[in-house]
């Protein structure tokens, strides 16, 4: 089948929240915009599963300095504070954009404070009954729920429905954005050192798509390795890998994310019961039946708990308090309608009663969801001219090594999406687009479809399984150590050099798997090399061989880039002096207090 060619000013890759903000902003600035999505723009992406968004607004009494301090404490001085300020200051305008597109939010009930707080019996899921479109300046329902000293400032608003992106889709179509669904982008095309286009294919009919464009906004989400957990598996670091191959700098890639899952139903996240319903009397025990939360002061639970297992005291259990389930039915129904997965239904179907049954849990390594990606400046420009990045594909370093500020992923997606769309539209205004020759297009077809024509060799399923077996055991990416990171890297390099060139795709759907494992291998290599380089621990980044924060040597960001010879080059960039906090404070005060529950 001959490739189909499209010409546009701005090509937006990925139809999540970041992609929609970018596309709509660029279109409203006068650019011709095409959005391409591997699935269906409107029901895909992590954005579909997210419930809430951080929202700061001074008029509602929020204190900028308090919110900023929370980010910095949780980010352990690795945040880009310029981006933190931008997110806080511009989130409100993006919220108003979404209301204007027709996205509903939870409204504040008359007579409530807006912050029911910890004393509310049912936690986060059920504090307002009304969904609608807040008027300008009307404060919607907002919620705060972190209780430690440094985690109580920021607040979130709640999206009114799960299919919120469908409203963005309607808006995008109404202003003349062309949306192409079920097309997976595989490669960027450069001419004269700048972006000239991109290529991909339709996962249903195998058609090759070639785009000639002035700028690309990479908004195709984060890097996951299709882990245990749910809903994250559509994103496999495609944007990061495409950008890397095109020569763009990556940053924040050494940091990773783990999530707690129920062992027997490992597609269920177990933060739901405690955080969402407020089952605060439930507790966690180790293999000996002991509660072990008392001495978590110096480490985040994401590290402290796996360490318990590392010491040989596993496995870990969730112990129910025996709450009366009937008190929660309403809350659960609402949760199912508006949020992530219907996890209570899921647990019920697996025969586990979360209110009464003890169940085993473990930490699943997901990949790099929030912290890292294509390094961007405040215009969302990457280091490749014409390539912009937004949302989880972008490395703004706003969060640092820990994701602790609720709702900041969606706020970041909206704010970076808007900026990327705005500056990409400005950029394309100044230049003519390129036209590819027939010979070039035939080369692109080969690059996209090659693995399908091969017909024999290793299966994509095998490569995926080998990647997962290499990265998922806790001792590789959760409790890290140089020798184990190097061993994992050796395997990933073997997959890159030996397995991948001999891997084939069995049909068009499997060709998607092929490109996904190819991208995951790039992501894994960057992630492991940068993790080996960072010889310290910070936030969720824990090195057994360097268990303490090293302020003298590691108040730095790591930057990875493909060198001229194709080998990866690594460098560091110092965190500005004024962002390093009070270095004279004792270690305990500077770092540990944030993990301690506030005295009642």
């Amino acid at each position, binding site marked *: 089948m001959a490739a189909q060619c499209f010409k546009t000013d701005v090509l937006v890759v990925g139809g999540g929240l970041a992609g929609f903000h970018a596309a709509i902003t660029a279109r409203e600035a006068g650019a011709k915009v095409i959005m391409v999505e591997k*699935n*269906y723009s*409107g*029901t*895909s*992406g992590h954005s*579909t*599963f997210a419930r809430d968004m951080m929202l700061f607004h001074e008029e509602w009494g929020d204190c900028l300095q308090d919110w900023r301090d929370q980010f910095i404490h949780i980010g352990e001085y690795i945040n880009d504070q310029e981006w933190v300020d931008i997110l806080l200051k511009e989130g409100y305008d993006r919220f108003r954009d979404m209301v204007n597109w027709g996205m509903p939010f939870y409204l504040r009930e008359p007579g409530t404070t807006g912050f029911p707080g910890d004393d509310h019996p049912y936690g986060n899921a059920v504090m307002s009954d009304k969904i609608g479109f807040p008027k300008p300046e009307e404060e919607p329902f907002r919620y705060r729920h972190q209780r430690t000293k440094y985690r109580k400032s920021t607040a979130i608003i709640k999206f009114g429905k*799960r*299919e919120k992106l469908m409203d963005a889709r309607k808006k995008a179509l109404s202003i003349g954005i062309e949306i192409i*669904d*079920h097309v997976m982008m595989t490669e960027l095309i450069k001419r004269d050192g700048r972006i000239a286009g991109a290529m991909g294919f339709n*996962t*249903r009919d195998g058609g090759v798509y070639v785009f000639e464009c002035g700028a690309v906004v990479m908004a195709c989400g984060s890097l996951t390795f*299709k*882990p*245990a957990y*749910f*809903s994250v*598996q*559509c994103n496999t670091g495609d944007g990061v890998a495409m950008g890397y191959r095109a020569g763009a700098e990556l940053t924040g890639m050494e940091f990773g994310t*783990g999530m707690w899952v129920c*062992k*027997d*139903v*490992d*597609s*269920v996240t177990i933060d739901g019961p405690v955080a969402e319903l407020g089952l605060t009397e439930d507790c966690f025990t180790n293999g000996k039946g002991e509660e072990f939360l008392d001495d978590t002061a110096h480490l985040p639970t994401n590290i402290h708990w*796996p360490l318990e*297992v590392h010491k040989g005291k*596993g*496995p870990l259990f969730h112990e129910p308090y025996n709450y009366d389930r009937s008190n929660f039915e309403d809350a659960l129904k609402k949760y*199912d309608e508006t949020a992530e*997965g*219907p996890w209570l*239904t*899921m*647990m019920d*179907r*697996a025969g586990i009663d979360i209110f009464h049954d003890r169940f085993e849990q*473990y*930490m*699943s*390594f997901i990949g790099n969801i929030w912290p890292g990606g294509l390094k961007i400046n405040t215009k969302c420009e990457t280091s490749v001219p014409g390539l912009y990045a937004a949302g989880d594909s972008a490395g703004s370093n706003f969060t640092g090594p820990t994701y602790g500020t609720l709702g900041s992923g969606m706020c970041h997606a909206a704010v970076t999406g808007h900026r990327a769309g705005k500056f990409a539209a400005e950029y394309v205004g100044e230049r003519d687009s390129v036209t590819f020759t027939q010979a070039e297009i035939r080369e692109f077809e080969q690059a996209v479809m090659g693995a399908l024509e091969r017909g024999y060799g290793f299966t994509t*399923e095998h490569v995926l*399984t080998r990647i*997962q*077996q290499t990265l*998922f*055991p*806790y001792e590789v990416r*959760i409790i890290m150590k140089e020798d184990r990171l190097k061993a994992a890297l050796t395997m990933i390099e073997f997959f890159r050099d030996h397995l991948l060139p001999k891997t084939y795709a069995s049909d068009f*759907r499997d060709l*998607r*798997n092929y490109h996904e494992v190819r991208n995951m291998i790039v992501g894994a290599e960057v992630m492991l090399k940068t993790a080996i380089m960072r010889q310290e621990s910070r936030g969720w980044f824990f090195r057994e061989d360097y268990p303490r924060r090293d302020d003298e040597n590691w108040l730095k960001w790591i930057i990875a880039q493909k060198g001229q010879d194709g080998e990866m080059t690594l460098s560091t960039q110092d965190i500005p002096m004024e962002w390093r906090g009070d270095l004279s404070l004792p270690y305990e005060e500077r770092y540990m207090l944030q993990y301690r529950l506030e005295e009642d």
Partner: protein
Amino acid sequence: MAIERIDKEKCIGCQKCVDACIMDVIRFDETEKKAVIKYPKECYCCYNCEVGCPSGAIYVDPRRLRPITPAWS
């Protein structure tokens, strides 16, 4: 396990699930005008299809077909 069934009697052929699946598991049978499970091994139990189906035709079991290496056991 994973997406287990799409009830042909209940399915009204709206194709919502065919679009909503984030892993491209479900396809549309043009002759029967019904949604069909084509790649069950790719299903990661996100429930996007079941939650969005207007006629309650889909049943997803929360345990995947494809085992994933656990962090510890």
